[in-house]
Every structure is written in structure tokens, then in C-alpha cells.
């Protein structure tokens, strides 16, 4: 199980998260949809990282993020039929471990990669990617392969 991503795209993810500090930053990971997306060992190759505004209300942006469903629907429609799709999301945990929180688990969708960046005081300290199990009870960490 793994997430393949170029160093240039990793920069976009990291910078988005660092710029958002002390709020959480977030965005989409886009790439070819794997043949067996739900397979526990599947590989995802990201070819685009698209930062999006954190839509959570101002009261809790430091520990919550929200992606506007209409925006997501629009992007899914744009990608429709191309073989590419939204294969995951990234978000940051300011001053907190890059492990999924109980709230992350409650809201998580299957198949997708959930890339979490730990940002301590504005600097990236850790970066891990996760996939929810089909039964929805936990996350499994996946390797991030940086290329190029």
C-alpha cells in the first residue's frame, strides 16, 4: 500500500500546510484511479495536488478542516471519464501528531489516501499517509514514495 508523489507535489502539500499554520491546511490529491482501489495493497500515484480553502468555521480551524462538497463535486465532474479522479486528501495537524484523530476516522471514506502533515510552529515535522479499512474501524499507514 503506497502513495507515489513527486517532490514538486510534496512541496505544494507542505507549503500549503505551513502557510495555513496555525490553522489546518487541506487539499485534494488527484491521479489515475487504481484498478482495484479498494484492495488493501493498492498503489496510488498522485499527479496533481490541489490546495483548497479550509471551509470550517473560524472557531475551530486550528484543529478542523472541511472541504466544500460543491467544490469537490465540481472537480469530480471535471475529471469524470478521464480515468483520473480524486484519490485522496491532504491536511495538516498543527502542533499535533501526523496520526489520524478519532474525528478523522469518523469522517473518513474508504479507498482514499489521507495524507497528514504535522506542522510544529509553522515548520513541517512529520508527514504520513493513511488508508481507512473497509470496515471503517481503523486506519492503516501506507508508505509515501517521493520521486523525482
Amino acid at each position, binding site marked *: 500500500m503506497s502513495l507515489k508523489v513527486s517532490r514538486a507535489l510534496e512541496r505544494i502539500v507542505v507549503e500549503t500546510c505551513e502557510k495555513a499554520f496555525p490553522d489546518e491546511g487541506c487539499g485534494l490529491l488527484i491521479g489515475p484511479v487504481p484498478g482495484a482501489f479498494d484492495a488493501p495493497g493498492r498503489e496510488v500515484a498522485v499527479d496533481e495536488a490541489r490546495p483548497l480553502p479550509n471551509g470550517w468555521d473560524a472557531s475551530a480551524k486550528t484543529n478542523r478542516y472541511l472541504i466544500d462538497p460543491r467544490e469537490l463535486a465540481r472537480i469530480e465532474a471535471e475529471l469524470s471519464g478521464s480515468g483520473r479522479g*480524486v484519490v485522496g486528501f491532504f491536511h495538516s495537524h498543527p502542533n499535533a501528531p501526523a496520526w489520524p484523530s478519532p474525528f478523522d476516522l469518523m469522517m473518513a471514506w474508504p479507498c482514499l489516501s489521507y495524507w497528514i502533515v504535522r506542522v510544529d510552529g509553522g515548520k513541517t515535522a512529520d508527514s504520513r499517509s493513511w488508508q481507512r479499512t473497509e470496515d471503517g474501524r481503523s486506519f492503516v499507514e501506507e508508505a509515501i514514495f517521493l520521486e523525482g
Partner: protein
Amino acid sequence: MSVDIRLPTALRAFADKQEKITVEAKNVGEALDALFAKHDRLKAQLLSPDGKLRSFVNVYVNEDDARDKQGLATPVKDGDVVLIVPAIAGGATLAAESELTKAELIRYNRHLILPEVGPEGQKKLKNSSVLCVGAGGLGSPLALYLAAAGVGRIGIVDFDVVDESNLQRQIIHDTLSVGTSKLESAKKRLLALNPHIAVETHETKLSSANAVELFQRYDVIADGTDNFPTRYLVNDACVLTGKPNAYGSIFRFEGQLSVFAAKDGPCYRCLYPEPPPPGLVPSCAEGGVLGVLPGVIGTMQAVETIKLILGIGKPLVGRLMLYDALEQSWRTLKVKKNPACPVCGDHPTIAAPIDYEAFCGLKEKPANMIPEITVEELKAKLDKKEKFVLLDVREPHEYEIAKIAGSKLIPLGDLPQRVGELDKAVKLVVHCKMGGRSARAVQFLRAQGFDATNVAGGINDWSERIDPSVPTY
């Protein structure tokens, strides 16, 4: 009305990769029902167990959120598009949750004042997870110490109930819990010891089908199993998931300890490429075990587990420690990684868990065709006064605890020397405690030309099903 349902990328894998599914429906609820009728796996993803749409699922009809209209009753007409859109949200645990609470700071004081642990280390323990395979002799002290140390999430796999004969060593259980599930008993005890942790129980037999998925949910696996098939399964699943295995095993007065499948370290197969022939190494139930021995070894497994989580000291990787309680000695052997190891070597041939019962030769028994009878059949033979010798191959001290009237005792180890005492013209029915040693005796006797039959389940089955006045031990 014919409407199109559009699925997000994440859900297409559950609907044969389709992004658009056309259904006949009058409203949104019907459209979803029609969708679930075609694609059953989608239902579990979108609906909660009580049949309501999960909170993170948005349904749009054309441009409008169905929640803003009439929810599932929102009508649809020909050509409408029903859009399922994930609400993507999440976020860090509130800092206060992952930090140590005041109560935890008090509880873990003796850790916090150790520079090697300190608040950072204690937080690592709090945010870590360990899976204990087995809630028995080794699992008892192991889980107790991990809970006391503040390991945040402890999983236990077991499917047994507490038996009175467990209590001589399985100190996580108590007399009141006899006859109840080991998992429930262990969970109760651990949470009573430390309410700040979470205990996850997995009431199942660890198998090739579930091990990998289960291991992925934990940081460290601690093997406290008592049989070879499960031991090899735990090893292989640890290697396959990249989880270190804090391993311990016990027999009579001796114990073994190591950390297998750590990064760049050897695995159990590097040490023991092949299991011993079936029956050669008796289980604790057959061979006995000093009650405090699992206390020593299980506690050492807890030490290694905590070191692995904290990243301190020198983990027991590449070293096998052998403990002898009678000599009161420890010996350390070096274990090298085997480049030809089929699971962790340079060219592994095992990419998924295999059939471990077969690997350990336990499925060959029927093929050898040892004739076997049940204790009921034995009882019938005795009642009919059939002519045969009932041979007991256990040890004399076991014979003293419990015996079947009229049996002749020749311990398995003495059988080759004393085989002359038996008459080839008379049929032999052979039993032991549980049927393992007697099966080997039958094999030996048949090779010598005797007409020997094994009693399945041994004297334990006899006392359970035929004569409760015979004690089980």
C-alpha cells in the same frame, strides 16, 4: 422515473468501477435503495447500522442538497442526476487530548522523572498501540504491565474461556471469572488497573485470513501463543506488515525471548526455518509449566515492547535469550538474518500468510490413518467386556492424579524398552491426557506389529463426557 446516480471516485470500487448508475425511482430514498440492491457493499459505506445516511454523506439532486429539500423523500423526475458527494473533513485531536492529563501526570510520575522516558516518552506510550496475541500465561503479565505503563491502546486476540487450571499462571484472570470469556475477564482487569487506556478485544482465532488486517492496526505485536502454527502465522504476518514481534515462549521450566521481524533484524523463521515434527514438543497442557515462568517471560516481553515504543536502549533484535528457571540462568545466543529466509530474506517466496496447520504437519494425521475411537466407543467396549488392553502412556505422576480403571501404565518414553511386556495377540487401546502422546505410541506400536488404536481426546474427554469423578488436570 429514470435517474442517474453519480458516485465519487472513492465509492466506485464498491460498484464495479462505474461512475454512473441508472435506476428507476420516484424519490431519493428509492434511488438509493435501488442502488444498494445492485451494489450491496455500498450500503455499509453510506448507511449507519440503523439505516440512516451517515453524517459525512451528502446527496445532491442536480444542484441542490437533498437535506435542504425533503431529504430522502425529495422527489426525482426523469433525467435528474443524484450526486453522492463525500463531506471531507477531519482534523487533529485537540491538543488537550493527546497531551497528558493531570491525572496521568500523577499516575505516571515515576516514568516522567526518568530522563529516558519523560513526558515525551509517556506521550509516545499514550499514543501507541500493542496487540497481545493470546490472553494466557504470557499475555497476562504482558498486558497488565503495558496497561500499567500507559500504552494507550491494547488489543487482545483470544477465543477461549477461563478454566480453573489456567489460574496457576494466568494472573490477569481470577477465580470469579472461571467459565467466562478470557477477553472480557482481561478487559475488566486492565481497565480496573488503568482507566486511561483503551482495550480492544478480538474474540476470534487468529488465522491466515485475518492476521494481516489485524496487525496493521497496531504498532507492536507481542506473541504469547502456545502452538507452532500460530507462532509461524504471527511471524509471517509481522514480517508482511512490517511490525516488530516481541516474542516469548515457555515450556516446563524454560523460556525463550527475542524481538523478531524488526527492521533489518531476523525473524522466527531465520531461527527455525522448519517447525518440529508434530507431537515432538508437547504443549504446556501436556508437558506442564511452572506457573511463575510465564510471569518472567511475559514481563520481559513487556520490557521489550516498551523499549520498542520509546525507542530507548538496545532492543533484543538478533539475539535469543534462553531462560532456565531451575538453573536460574540466562543465556544469550546470536540470531542472524537468513538471506534465504522464505519470508524476510532477499528473495521472499511467501507474500501472504499460508496454511500453517499443513506447514506444521498437523493435517497429515488423518493421512497416516491411525485408527482412533472416541471415549464413548471406549466406554462401550469396556461395558461389553471386549478383550483388549487399555494402555496409558502418561507419566506416573499423572496416573496418580487421574486414571481409567483397569488400564496399564507404560509412559511413552519407556515404551520402546518395555514393549516386550505387551502381547501382540491382544488388541491395544491407547490413551494419554489429550490424545497427542497416545497417537505417537499407536504409531510406534503399529510399526512393531501391534493392533493398536488411539483414544481421541484422552482422559480429559473421558472425565468430561463419561466419568466426571475422574479429575481433569
